[in-house]
């Protein structure tokens, strides 16, 4: 990868992180939802750079197109946030923050780095060809080949969720 590509990737990673920060800490839920959108976009780009182009597309379609809009709808249907600004438990954030910084983060980070360094010791032979080859037909073959059973299972799940959501949200 060329240098500029790497820079673009880093930029998008920073975008993802910043939007993720906004999602968790912004007092207004609407802003949080929109920042979530951008976070998904950053993630899609990262997928792209990781050679998962089909997934990046799916990500964009499903997450950005679907889930975020769904969330916006939910916000509008529920708490007229204009009148009622849910008072976040601002004061109480100090404890989780500390916990995260000193408790969770160092260990997750150290674990990941340790894992990564061990993984990178052996680079798979067809690294290059895989990284930059289109994956759609591979995914298609895999879905209907090795992963036929989960594919079918997931369809049943979607059906269940669909029916459930409709029944749950029906008007009285």
């Amino acid at each position, binding site marked *: 990868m060329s240098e500029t590509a790497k820079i673009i*990737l880093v930029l998008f990673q920073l975008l*993802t992180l910043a939007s*993720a920060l906004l999602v968790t800490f912004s007092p207004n839920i609407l802003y949080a939802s929109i920042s979530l959108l951008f976070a998904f976009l950053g993630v899609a780009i990262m997928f792209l750079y990781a050679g998962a182009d089909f997934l990046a597309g799916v990500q964009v379609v499903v997450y950005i197109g679907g889930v975020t809009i769904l969330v916006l709808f*939910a916000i509008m249907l529920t708490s007229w946030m204009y009148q009622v600004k849910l008072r976040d438990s601002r004061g109480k954030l100090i404890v989780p923050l500390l916990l995260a910084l000193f408790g969770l983060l160092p260990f997750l980070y150290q674990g990941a780095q340790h894992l990564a360094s061990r*993984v*990178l010791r052996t680079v798979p032979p067809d690294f290059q060809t*895989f*990284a930059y080859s289109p994956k759609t037909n591979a995914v298609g073959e895999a879905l209907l080949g090795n992963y036929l059973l989960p594919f079918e299972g997931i369809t049943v799940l*979607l059906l269940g969720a669909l029916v459930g*959501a409709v029944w749950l949200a029906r008007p009285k």
Partner: protein
Amino acid sequence: MSFLDWATGLHGYLFVGTILATLGIIAVVYRRNSIGVLLGIELLLNAASINFIAFSKFRTAAIDGQIFALFIIIIAAAEAAVALAIILRLYRLRETIDAGEANLMRN
């Protein structure tokens, strides 16, 4: 090795994944608004996908990782739908979607 190599390599992907996961958990835990909780969950799921994709590229160079990420995305969508339906129901019942109020399950 430079910062760029680091960031765009496996380490960068894992670093972003970790941060996203941590922020996701904090959101889930401390968001008063149940929709905020939902957002947190979405973040978490994406962090997982990042990891799958990263390892799919840097470790196995095989499609499996991506298949998993695909399934995560599908499930996340279904889950979001159902969750929002529950939130609407909650709102209709309790006139509020404050996660703290929904404590019927207490002792």
